[in-house]
């Protein structure tokens, strides 16, 4: 098929798919993931020596890495509960992975997806609880409440991300540090707001009232929305003039400036877009996973960094990397319950993947040494 005959965005897509460097990035990602899994396995095996257990697998080793990975990757196939959790986590990681990818594409390190998600989730929960009684009964009311709640999540997440964007653009404040600080602030402020004003009566933990049941939905719908959003953002980034400006500002700020793009405004806009997607993820977490805002929001924003980095910050790659980590996060509960291996292992693998993807040179060297021209 001749890419030239296709409509603009699709031709661009085809062009990227056949691009040799895209293949190389894919090879690096796969190699990095496999290496991270290998190192994670060794870490598990060694950690087992220090753990106390009644029936070790062999000698001093308490943990069996193969069993761990069976749970992390295959449990969804056999256990309906884990499958359900996998689908939920996958949908959420599509949102956060996409949020991070958008900012990285714009040349901004938005490490604050976590904070944007926490506050977006809180806004969604509060709005849903508030408008619940006013909404009509039945499915129409549910759709209405969910729609308004998700809008609130996106708006709050977007505004919260606009702060570091504006600070970067107009005051030169390093966005890595400001977004990390804003993560701390978001969880403290959300904790304060809920415990002081929106606490669910009679509850021992810090949480809001339940959102109306009609507004909640299952992972299927969430996944469908996430995939649609991924496709929409892909089109936005590669099929529109705005997307071209955003990406140019990320790769070649000077060139973008020369081409008449207001680089400063673009920083704020792309951070806002990224934050809105993260906030939307928070709203989905409330409406799909927990049915209210509850303290101790999972680290979906940090997993989003790994998902995006593993996907070379490519939204379509996020479609694969998201479910991969969704499965691992869901399986992490199983390894904790069934094998006694602490679920934080997934956090270790998360960091290892980022480290290894960051060093493509290693795999190039190895590829050349082992005579695999394909990697080069």
């Amino acid at each position: 098929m001749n890419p030239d005959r296709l409509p603009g965005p699709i031709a661009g897509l085809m062009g990227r798919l056949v691009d040799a460097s895209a293949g190389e990035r894919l090879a690096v990602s796969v190699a990095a993931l496999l290496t991270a899994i290998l190192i994670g396995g060794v870490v598990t095996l060694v950690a087992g020596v220090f753990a106390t257990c009644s029936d070790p697998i062999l000698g001093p080793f308490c943990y069996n890495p193969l069993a761990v990975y069976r749970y992390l990757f295959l449990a969804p196939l056999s256990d309906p509960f884990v499958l359900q959790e996998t689908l939920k986590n996958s949908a959420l990681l599509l949102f956060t992975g996409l949020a991070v990818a958008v900012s990285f594409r714009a040349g901004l390190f938005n490490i604050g997806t976590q904070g944007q998600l926490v506050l977006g989730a809180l806004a969604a929960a509060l709005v849903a609880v508030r408008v619940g009684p006013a909404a009509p009964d039945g499915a129409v009311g549910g759709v209405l409440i969910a729609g308004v709640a998700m809008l609130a999540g996106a708006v709050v997440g977007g505004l919260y991300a606009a702060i570091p964007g504006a600070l970067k653009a107009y005051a030169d404040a390093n966005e890595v540090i400001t977004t990390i600080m804003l993560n701390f602030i978001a969880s403290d402020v959300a904790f304060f707001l809920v415990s002081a004003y929106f606490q669910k009566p009679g509850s021992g933990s810090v949480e809001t009232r339940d959102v109306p049941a009609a507004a909640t939905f299952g992972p299927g719908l969430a996944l469908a929305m996430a995939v649609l959003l991924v496709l929409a953002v892909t089109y936005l980034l590669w099929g529109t003039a705005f997307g071209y400006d955003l990406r140019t500002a990320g790769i070649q700020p000077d060139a973008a400036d020369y081409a008449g793009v207001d680089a400063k405004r673009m920083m704020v806009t792309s951070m806002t877009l990224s934050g809105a997607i993260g906030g939307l993820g928070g709203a989905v977490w409330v409406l799909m996973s927990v049915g209210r805002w509850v303290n101790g929001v999972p680290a979906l924003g940090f997993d989003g960094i790994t998902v995006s980095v593993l996907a070379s910050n490519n939204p379509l790659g996020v479609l694969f990397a998201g479910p991969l980590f969704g499965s691992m996060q869901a399986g992490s509960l199983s390894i904790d319950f069934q094998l006694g291996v602490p679920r934080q292992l997934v956090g270790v693998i998360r960091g290892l993947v980022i480290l290894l993807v960051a060093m493509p040179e290693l795999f190039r060297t190895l590829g050349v040494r082992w005579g695999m021209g394909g990697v080069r």
Partner: protein
Amino acid sequence: MRPSPTRRLAGLGAFVLAVIMLTAIVELFPNTVVGAAIGGALATAGSILGIMDSAYAASALRLSVPIAFAALGGIFAERSGVINIGLEGLLILSAFTGVAVAHWLTGDGTTAVGPGIVLLLVIAVLLAVAGALLGLLGDTTGEIAVRAGGGVLATAALAGLTVALAGPTLAATWLAFYTAVLVSTAFALLFAVVTIEYRADQVIAGLAVWLIALGVAPFASNVIWGAVNSPGVDTLGTWTVPGLSELPVLGTVLFNAGPVVYFLLLATPLSWYVLAHTSFGYWVRASGENPKALDTAGVDVRRVRYAAVLLSGVFSGIGGAGLSLGRVGSFVGSGTTMIDGRGWIGITAMLFGNYNPFGAFGASLLFAALDALQFRLQQLNYAVPDSLMQTVPYVTVIIVLALVGRTRTPDAAGEHYESDED
């Protein structure tokens, strides 16, 4: 563009603002001790000023340890051209390692110093071997052997001296401290290999070090203790200088403090001296500003950068273990761990202090003073939500960053340098 003095002054103003913010938060919730009184604002401000006595100053100095050591380490790395934003991760790893080893050596009521020495020496030997394999220790076999052997022997001598001087439990705690510093250095070495050898993006690799630490420390805590938080261990105690500690104010603040506080008071001027007045300091600065010229002058840019990044690991190790073993006496691995962003605050202090050790120390002290104030206000039982007061240091970091703006980073920072020779 160096930030103008006005902007730095404005940054200082941010700290005043932060204190006012704390006062305002206290004021928003008037159902407190002072609240009923007339002129609550004045009373609160007055009581906040009343808190600032010598005990408060001492606590601020203690709290500045992890922040300032991270900042000092960051200065060396970044001035040599390697942006190390993994400092937070190194603090976490050393804080955990210190407590884990201390608990291993002193845990069940008995104290075993021997295994601690063995562990320390094993790590020292591994580091020496890694250094030799990377070609960091010299060009000839003799040179390598002398330096590697010297390093290991120095570690052994330090361990021996510690055991000879301190009682068994204290000696074990010190051995745990040394081990934590070496482990942090080892991770810094990993970061150096990844960024210098394999040209990884320094920001992404630094983030990875942080996220790995954020996973490893609670994971290992769970493996060892079955919980993300550790049981309590002994601390390094305090060193009281006889006579001088009797001095008013200064005695409490400077001469009756934890050992790591003294280390900090030594490390700050020492770092300044090394950077400004030794040839190593000159190489570090040249390697960050103009690596090509340094290379032409016959100095190995690669080795200088390795040395600087390893130094950031040593400093972070002292800072992290200094927090867990020097002050707290346990490891907290829940949430964002007990380090709670102090590495990031350290990076901000480094920027605010314009990569000058004294400036960075001063900035760290300001952040720590804010932290101490926040702790004090919580202790005074104001009915103020702790969670809101905890945000004040973080908000101040953002304001300071916005006011100081882009600092003049070394020209070659963040860039890989490839010598033409090979």
